[in-house]
């Protein structure tokens, strides 16, 4: 079977799919690369010709990924996704740093990190003697650099690592990663950044940013799920989390998933190459969405950096609102039944909507945080998707507000 990149990739999701930050369709070229390599046999660690073929594909993928994000191939450690890369960064850097300097027990993370960073950090507090410092953010969800500098001035020589995401997955706030690096450097503190939401949306250059480690993920940018990478400088002391066959510099054992890596590499290359054009289109579409939501529900409050006033501080495909008096689960259900798929912003294991820790960290009261909806656009998004949302929204919001009144929990309810 020959699959050419001109064939369609994953179909555009049914209905108005406004949840590309959760996952976005695989591109045609990525799907083709996946299928091509899934048809081949070969363990990239084997020494015979089948193995060499697999290894070649993996190494080409590594070079492609490295080139796209401003890194050297030897800095790319493939993982089973963003969560694994974040775990490797938090645990591996902490252990690596402590081996050389026992005083360094503090892990500094922004209060708006993804759970894939927060949870391993808190796990290290419970199991490895780490102390976690949550760095505050402003009301737009952007890191408070003064608080970071104050923390470093006081405890700089006790810090093992700092992790601040490149851009927030809920409210789209782009974080001052370069300033974090600048602040950390005098103290010799390694900086990790979760760039899962950023790559393909805004410019991401690993080397230029100065960070020591960076997480990227396949399925957020048109690649398959279950593959990602930790891009890490060679000088960074990194302890292994997965032990075994010694693949990936010995820090991430496990047979290389060549079809996923090949598809991931194609997707990263495409996402980065087409970024400016796509970002401009998505930003315009997003601005239209914000406008239409405000028309349909004038009481809705936009959360995160204002895309009109400071567009450079927000992901182009992200819009996030809270709807006073309505609960997110009601809004989600009603929109879903109208064929519009959005997210309450954070989901947890059992699918229980909890008030977002990101909104709470921004100072949003819990009652208001319950009425949150995130809309995120991607490559397949169209003006029709936005219109469908705008048409459905007035009734959805008024119904959800009526339900909020009887439940007495959402802001403006009878509580």
């Amino acid at each position, binding site marked *: 079977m020959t699959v050419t990149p001109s064939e369609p990739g994953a179909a555009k999701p049914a209905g108005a799919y406004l949840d590309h930050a959760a996952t976005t369709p695989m591109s045609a070229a990525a799907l083709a690369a996946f299928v091509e390599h899934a048809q081949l046999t070969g363990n990239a660690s084997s020494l015979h010709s089948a193995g060499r073929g697999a290894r070649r594909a993996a190494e080409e993928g590594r070079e492609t990924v490295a080139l796209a994000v401003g890194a050297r191939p030897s800095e790319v450690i493939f993982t089973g996704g963003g969560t694994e890369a974040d775990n490797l960064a938090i645990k591996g850097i902490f252990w690596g740093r402590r081996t050389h300097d026992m005083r360094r027990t503090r892990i500094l993370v922004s209060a708006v990190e993804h759970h894939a960073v927060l949870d391993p950090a808190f796990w290290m507090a419970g199991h490895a003697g780490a102390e976690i410092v949550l760095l505050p953010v402003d009301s737009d969800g952007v890191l408070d650099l003064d608080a970071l500098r104050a923390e470093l001035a006081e405890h700089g020589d006790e810090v093992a690592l700092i992790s601040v995401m490149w851009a927030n997955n809920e409210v789209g706030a782009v974080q001052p990663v370069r300033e974090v690096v600048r602040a950390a450097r005098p103290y010799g503190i390694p900086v990790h950044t979760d760039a899962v939401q950023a790559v393909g949306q805004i410019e991401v250059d690993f080397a230029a940013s100065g960070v020591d480690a960076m997480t990227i993920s396949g399925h957020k940018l048109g690649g398959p799920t279950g593959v990602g990478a930790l891009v890490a400088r060679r000088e960074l002391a990194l302890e292994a989390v997965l032990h075994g066959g010694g693949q990936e510099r010995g820090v991430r054992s496990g047979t290389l998933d060549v079809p996923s890596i090949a598809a991931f590499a194609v997707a990263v290359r495409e996402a980065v190459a087409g970024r400016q054009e796509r970002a401009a289109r998505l930003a315009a579409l997003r601005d239209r969405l914000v406008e239409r939501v405000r028309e349909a529900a004038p009481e809705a409050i936009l959360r995160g950096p204002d895309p009109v006033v400071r567009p450079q501080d927000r992901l182009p495909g992200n819009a996030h609102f809270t709807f006073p008096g309505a609960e997110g*689960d*009601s809004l*989600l*259900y*009603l929109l*879903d*039944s109208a064929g519009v798929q959005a997210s309450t912003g954070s989901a947890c*294991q*059992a*699918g*229980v*909507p*909890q008030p977002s820790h990101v909104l709470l960290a921004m100072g949003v009261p819990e009652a208001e945080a319950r009425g949150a909806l995130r809309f995120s656009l991607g490559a397949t998004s169209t003006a029709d998707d936005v219109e469908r949302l705008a048409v459905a929204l007035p009734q959805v919001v008024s*119904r*959800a507000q*009526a*339900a909020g*009144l*009887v*439940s007495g*929990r959402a802001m403006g309810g009878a509580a």
Partner: protein
Amino acid sequence: MRVLAAMSGGVDSAVAAALAVEAGHEVVGVHMALSRNRDQFRTGSRGCCSIEDAGDARRAADVLGIPYYVWDLSERFEDTVVADFLSEYEAGRTPNPCVRCNEHIKFEALLDKATALGFDAVVTGHYAQVVTGPGGAPELHRSPNDAKDQSYVLAVMGPERLARAKFPLGGFASKDEVRAEAAQRGLSVSAKPDSYDICFVADGDTRGFLRSRLGSRPGTVVDVSGDVVGEHDGAYAFTVGQRKGLALGRPAPDGAPRYVVDVQVSTNTVVVGPAELLSVDRVAGEKAIWLCSPAEEAGPDGWIDGEVQVRAHGAPVPARVRATGEAVHPGEAVPPSGTPGLEVQLVGDPLRGVAPGQSVVVYRGTRVLGQATVTGAWRSR
């Protein structure tokens, strides 16, 4: 009709949802998350509140091809059902949390939210029947499945909410039939064990749960003459009629078994006595809720002829019942609530161990006429 199927993750609610789909309704499955800290709730196969249960509900919805959502009602659950459970025990009464859950969660928080979101009814897997009465009003009837009948815990919902509830399992004569229906539809929960315990008491240890939430309050156990015969960790954990778990040091002089006959929380004292002290023929209740017009059902003397049931799995006994404008409170222990109440006069043999806090449900045949919360019981003859 657009209906919301409450899906606990158990076999009953899964089959109820399936039957609603097959009846041609537009069905949406909703699992209620009732604990924020899920570790507090038991895991494993017996419960209705664990992550596994949410997963089982999701898989049942997948098989039925219906949308599925989880709604977080944990705060309401804690504020109503759990808080009531604790305060009732603390006041020396014995609450039925399933009644309070039906009253405040399933047929209030969930039903009202569903109604506001455009649903016509809520479907649950309860064993009870809703029948349209001669005047068009809904009547609540017992399930033909005596062992599983849940009309006792549903009576609290009142007529207006009953009209918006559907119990597709009401006509099933046995649980085996329900399991067979589940298996036939490929629902993996078909062989899932039944849940029996209180869902928020992780290990079934109610006394341990109460101690962890209310603290240890050591006191004495006395007999009816006031002699101290034992000690306890907190009078609140005892129930009138209880025999087990008293740990009395010495036997009664006559060697007869002793039961809890009174729980006096004001003095933190548990009173024990012989079984005959538990026999009562009068029961009083508060917060009466009627599923009929008591005036129409009553004879010229104001009394309704029927039967009453005073605990979830008890047998109904013949009784005359009268609606009262005010709650009736024998003794001084319970302050008047000012809510409508009811009085019960047993017609036949006396009942044993009627615990304040439980529901007294009034039946005539299979039909539920009304219910109230027991405030007290005594012997009149």
